[in-house]
């Protein structure tokens, strides 16, 4: 049986052992499956495991590698996919009771791309019902109950990619796939002490993924390092004829090698002064230390401010209206009442009533904001700020009252489709992880990866993991 130390290795190191045949993909898959069966239910991390698929894919990978056909860094690496990605023949519940028996007869493009790269699907990760598309008040807004944080099981792993975050942090898989409409990759990455990449809108195909907000949904990796995120992103990025919102081939595709960074220009970084109006006192110390590290690692780091405007309101209106359209049948049929969360049961009715003129105005505001952010990125390559202004909240928190703070960077970043990468940067005095995010110009995912990787090369927060029985 492989040790937990092996199971916590980043993909970049696991892949070397697999390629050299020091680690067998079948053994690795079995070890992750055993650990997932043991710890997954304690954390509510999985919607379901797919052991038959996993072992079949692992055996195929092992045979290919033995024949000398090595596909690349994800070959033979087990992963989990958020339960809103279609996997042929496997229930895809979108985390919600009304869809508990939903089965698709095709694979999402992301699943297909990962299969082609030789990755091994371990199971479907738990998630907040409908990715929070009908709103939610409690972490328990999920078919399997609230996902617990591996660092402290009385705390939440954050959502909506709640299972994806917990699975990576608990060493239940090599990496996981999540999605973000607003905060659903960056927040679980921060709360769980792992690395998470929210790619530029349009770089990863959403074919076969549940739609919540057609103009804001994005798919990205949660992993143990920024470098891992880059390798996974390189596999899942690209134009897809089945998803008309993907960027053209030359702007969607992403290739990566750490060697690319050797000849690259130094990054121009700016610390965002107004990303959060207030930092929780428990998180102040690690974030202050992270800010000092950023200024040391990126000489000339300036201070910058986000533009003022109703950008959170615009993002909220767009998500609400597009979500009401995406789930119109669920709302009108009344089956929205089957959702677990009291807020989720009613918000769709209100969102249906938002006037079209307000939606269009939100899109006008979005265009203005895109220009303002493009101007800001004329001076900087990356903007840096805390991923969240606090460590993980208690699992029974009322999110509406206890986490009632503005998130202008989340609003702006998602409204403009900007890439962001969250990396661990320390711990609160309650031993909960704290995250730091790097945000870049639309299309410049490489800069956020470079910046995050530079931070991780000079710190060891991403190598720490929770002790789980």
């Amino acid at each position: 049986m492989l040790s937990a130390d092996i199971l916590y290795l980043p993909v970049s190191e696991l892949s070397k052992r697999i390629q050299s045949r020091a680690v067998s993909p079948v053994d690795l898959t079995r070890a992750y499956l055993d650990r997932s069966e043991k710890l997954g239910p304690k954390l509510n991390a999985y919607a379901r495991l797919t052991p038959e698929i996993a072992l079949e894919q692992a055996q195929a990978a092992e045979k290919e590698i033995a024949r000398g056909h090595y596909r690349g860094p994800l070959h033979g690496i087990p992963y989990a996919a958020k339960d809103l990605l279609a996997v042929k023949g496997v229930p895809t519940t979108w985390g919600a009771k009304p869809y508990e028996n939903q089965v698709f007869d095709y694979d999402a493009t992301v699943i297909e791309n990962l299969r082609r790269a030789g990755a091994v699907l371990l199971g479907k990760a738990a998630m907040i019902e409908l990715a929070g598309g009908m709103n939610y008040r409690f972490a328990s807004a999920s078919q399997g109950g609230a996902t617990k944080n591996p660092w402290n099981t009385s705390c939440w792993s954050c959502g909506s990619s709640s299972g994806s975050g917990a699975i990576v942090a608990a060493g239940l898989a090599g990496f996981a796939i999540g999605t973000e409409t607003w905060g659903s990759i960056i927040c679980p990455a921060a709360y769980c002490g792992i690395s998470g990449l929210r790619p530029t809108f349009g770089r990863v195909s959403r074919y076969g993924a549940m739609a919540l907000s057609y103009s804001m949904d994005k798919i990205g990796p949660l992993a143990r390092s920024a470098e891992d995120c880059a390798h996974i992103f390189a596999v899942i990025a690209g134009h897809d004829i089945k998803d008309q919102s993907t960027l053209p081939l030359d702007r969607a595709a992403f290739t990566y090698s750490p060697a690319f960074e050797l000849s690259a220009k130094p990054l121009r970084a700016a610390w965002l002064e107004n990303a959060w109006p207030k930092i929780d006192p428990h998180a102040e110390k690690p974030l202050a230390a992270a800010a000092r590290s950023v200024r040391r690692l990126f000489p000339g780091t300036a201070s910058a401010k986000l533009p003022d405007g109703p950008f959170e309101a615009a993002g909220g209106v767009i998500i609400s209206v597009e979500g009401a359209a995406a789930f119109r049948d669920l709302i009108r049929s009344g089956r929205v009442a089957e959702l677990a969360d009291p807020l989720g049961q009613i918000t769709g009715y209100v969102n249906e009533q938002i006037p079209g003129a307000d939606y269009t105005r939100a899109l006008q505001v979005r265009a203005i904001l895109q220009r303002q952010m493009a101007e800001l990125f004329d001076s900087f390559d990356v903007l840096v700020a805390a991923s969240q202004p606090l460590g993980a909240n208690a699992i029974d928190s009322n999110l509406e009252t206890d986490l009632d703070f503005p998130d202008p960077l989340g609003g702006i970043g998602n409204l403009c489709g900007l890439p962001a990468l969250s990396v661990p940067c320390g711990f609160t005095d309650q031993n909960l992880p704290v995250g730091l995010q790097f945000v870049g110009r639309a299309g410049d995912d490489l800069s956020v990866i470079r910046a995050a990787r530079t931070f991780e090369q000079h710190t060891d927060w991403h190598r720490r993991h929770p002790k789980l029985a």
Partner: protein
Amino acid sequence: MKQGKDALTRREFATRAALGAVGVASDPAAAWSAFRRDGWPAGGPRQTPEEARKLSPQGLAEVENRYQAILAQYPDRFSDAQKADLRHVCLVTQQSLDRLRAYAVSNADQPALYLKPLVEREKKSNAPPNLKSAAPAPPGKPAANAPPEKP
């Protein structure tokens, strides 16, 4: 069917029906008294009628209209607690809409739409077929640019 001068269009009918159902709520003062009367349930939403007072009378009327329109459309769906929650969500939504509407945009400000990939695809599909470069059809199969077979 040609409509007479006084006939209602379907949209007008729907609008008037909704306004009729929420006649009380179209009056801001009445809307405010509805908030005072109903209040919020214990342990329910954080917004209080005092916070609702921050909205303009028009905003408050819009909240009440939206709330009543939902009840009119779905009369039997909500418990009392859910009704209070619904009104709360209407209020929070209104606060967002008010912030959005207060931001100056001009007639010339185009909305940000993600239609470029679609436009490119349409251009390609409208392009005349390149007969010279069309691959020859394998034996027994029609060429890619051959007209569809008639049933």
